[in-house]
């Protein structure tokens, strides 16, 4: 039999082998599980989830244009757009954290289940570290909760319901777009100045999450002015002809009609209301007026001449003259031959804000990004000084009150800026009753 001899050489050898053997799995797992979809090579993948089919396809297309532009600017291509005006200088035009940015896109179809499936596929199959885009609050809330569960960051696109950063808020989700409460607060003083404090309002409201919070917000804001609410009628989301809802308005004693509708609903209800001659009538000794709390460029284009003189609100508009807006409009306009919409702007800004947060955090880890975005103050993105509030992940910035242009000079000249409402006027406490009931929870990095 051989005698087992332990000498120095074998001890070192076996010790190293055992050590490596023990350490290997932990090295392996710790690097693999740092966080979900950690970019390994020279690239990082972002997922753009926008409506590419269905009634909001044109809005989705505009979002995608802006997202593509943002990716170009991040990679140092083109003229850099708002990178040049952004107050944070962390981004260098060499991708994010030195990794070249690439993107995949999904189709939300403006349906919650389709949007979740598209986001899931981009996260699982394409390895997206962030999901951005969308044009509906129902979709935003659904995708936000999916991203929270999966462990990636959700940078919301166009979503205006209070719930997105209210009862449905999530630690991994962030909203740059404004919300229904802010629209109400911004519109009230302008409505007061234009139409007086003694008004009786009749509401038509789309029967889903956004419509309800929009109606509640504008009702509260106008009642504070002294307006009376005559009636609030819920209309089916699938409705196309609103004539039977509008016919009774004139004899209801109301002298203002508030249309809490978006997209196709708003185009049709406003068109129908104008057909009924509401805006030519005098009621209670006053000119009858129509208010559309949330405007978009595409809706204004769809409603044509019917928007003329009608007041509403927006998150951003290409006619703004600050340096950030001018840089973005120039960059977008030269590439696509048309001014960007406010949904394009919010998606572009969100991609930039995400990239900047990664750069400042030094990681793509969602928990690091959350820390970098919470309480982040910035400027130069087209809305003046802006705060990403830590309490609810809502951006606070100036809000635009718009009016349908009376004498348009070209096809993009549909809306004009009436007032830039200062941020202070639209701020609210994190525990405001309209936003109550939610909890951000813990950040999830998918580890």
């Amino acid at each position, binding site marked *: 039999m051989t005698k087992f001899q332990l000498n120095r050489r074998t001890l070192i050898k076996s010790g190293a082998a055992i050590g490596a053997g023990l350490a290997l799995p932990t090295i392996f797992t710790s690097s693999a599980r740092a966080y979900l979809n950690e970019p390994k090579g020279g690239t990082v993948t972002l997922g753009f989830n926008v409506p590419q089919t*269905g*009634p*909001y*396809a*044109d809005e989705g297309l505009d979002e995608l244009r802006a997202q593509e532009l943002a990716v170009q600017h991040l990679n140092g291509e083109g003229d850099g757009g708002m990178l040049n005006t952004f107050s944070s200088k962390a981004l260098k035009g060499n991708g994010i954290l030195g990794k070249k940015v690439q993107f995949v896109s999904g189709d939300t179809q403006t349906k919650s289940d389709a949007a979740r499936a598209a986001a899931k596929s981009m996260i699982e199959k394409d390895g997206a570290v962030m999901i951005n885009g969308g044009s509906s609050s129902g979709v935003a809330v659904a995708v936000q909760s999916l991203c929270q569960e999966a462990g990636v960051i959700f940078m919301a696109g166009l979503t205006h319901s209070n719930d997105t950063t209210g009862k449905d808020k999530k630690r991994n989700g962030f909203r740059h777009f404004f919300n229904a409460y802010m629209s109400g607060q911004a519109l009230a003083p302008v409505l007061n100045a234009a139409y007086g404090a003694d008004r009786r309002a009749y509401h038509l409201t789309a029967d889903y999450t956004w419509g309800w919070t929009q109606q509640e917000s504008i009702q509260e804001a106008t009642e504070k002015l002294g307006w009376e609410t005559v*009636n609030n*009628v819920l*209309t*089916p989301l*699938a409705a*196309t*002809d609103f*004539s*039977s*809802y509008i*016919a*009774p308005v*004139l*004899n*209801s004693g109301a002298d203002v009609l508030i249309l809490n509708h978006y997209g*196709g609903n708003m*185009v*049709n209800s406003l*068109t*129908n209301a104008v*057909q*009924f*001659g509401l805006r*030519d*009538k005098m009621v209670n000794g006053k000119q009858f007026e129509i208010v559309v709390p949330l405007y978009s460029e*595409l809706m204004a*284009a*769809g*409603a*044509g*001449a*019917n928007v003329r003189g009608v007041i509403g609100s927006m998150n951003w508009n*290409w*006619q703004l003259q600050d340096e950030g807006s001018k840089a973005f*409009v*120039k960059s977008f*306009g*030269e590439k696509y031959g048309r*001014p960007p919409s406010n949904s394009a702007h919010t998606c572009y800004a969100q991609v930039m804000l995400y990239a900047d947060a990664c750069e400042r955090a030094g990681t793509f880890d969602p928990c690091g990004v959350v820390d970098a975005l919470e309480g982040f103050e910035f400027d130069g993105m087209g809305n003046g000084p802006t705060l990403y509030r830590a309490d609810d992940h809502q951006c606070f910035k100036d809000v635009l009150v718009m009016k349908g242009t009376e004498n348009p*000079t*070209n096809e*993009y000249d549909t809306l004009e800026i009436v007032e830039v409402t200062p941020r202070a006027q639209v701020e609210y406490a994190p525990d405001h009753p309209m936003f109550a009931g939610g909890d951000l929870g813990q950040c999830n990095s998918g580890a």
Partner: protein
Amino acid sequence: MARGFVGAGFTMDAIILQVLNGLDKGSAYAMIALGLTLIFGTLGVVNFAHGALFMLGAFCAVTLQRILSLSYTVEDPTQTDFLGNPLKVDTPYIVSWFGDATGNAILNWSVPLAILFAIPVMLLIGYVMERGLIKHFYKRPHADQILVTFGLAIVIQEIVKYFYGANPIPTPAPDMFRGSVDFGVMIGFAQNEIIYPYWRLVYFLFSAVIIGSVFAFLRFTTFGMVVRAGMADRETVGLLGINIDKRFTIMFGIAAAVAGLAGVMYAPINSPNYHMGMDFLVLSFVVVVVGGMGSLPGAVLAGFLLGILESFASMNEVKSVIPGIDQIIIYLVAIIILLTRPRGLMGRKGVMEE
């Protein structure tokens, strides 16, 4: 329970308003359902692409508007566009050819003019659809017909979306029909009690003319007589040496034209978009079933009836008693009618009952 019915709103003027409204909605339903029934009665095909024909009609109006406003572009150095470049000013050719007044008047009347444009276009589309696709499905089960026509509808939609985008396209009525008329004053009410848009009254009258013409055509022409005979007994008419297939193809074209004209005139009521056909399709089928499969007067009657019921269901006084009734009334009525009269209001025995 009774509160709603004695409430201030449930007055004579409100009722008349909703009747007008219902007649108006019913006009579109009746015209689409009439075409559906014509196709079903003559060819025995359940045509789910009929909503798409309605939509194509509306896009005939959009297309004519675009053709008429074809423009040449001149750069105007005195004005600038949104990027600060010289503004490109578009002048429609017809304005430069016919002068400002005539040119703009033609543009203004583009929707009524589109009727003339839509009739040949829709007849052609109907002819191509029937000869190219649907005739191959005559002998197939109804389920196959439904699948193929539904697929066709989706294809047509996507083609329209490709060329025109997904956003609605404003297609206004001529200036003189914009705004509204005080209908109440005409029938002895006080001012401002019953205000109704001009164009919707025009739409109702237009549909009455179209429906009347179709019935007159079937009743008073030899062609119509043969078609009616063919609807009743295709085989015997064929044995008499009459080429019934050819006549049925023409009927398909006429049905397409009726749906198309309904669409043309609807364009100013709601800006057309690529999926407007689907919005009407399901309702129109309910209308056909309620009216009785294969019955032309039934389709028209049910169209107006359901239009009026839908309008009444969306009154606040009704909604306050039964919330959400406006969303389900059509289907509720369909269930009740089918339970009490399984063949529909005016359905005949033996249709779709083989």
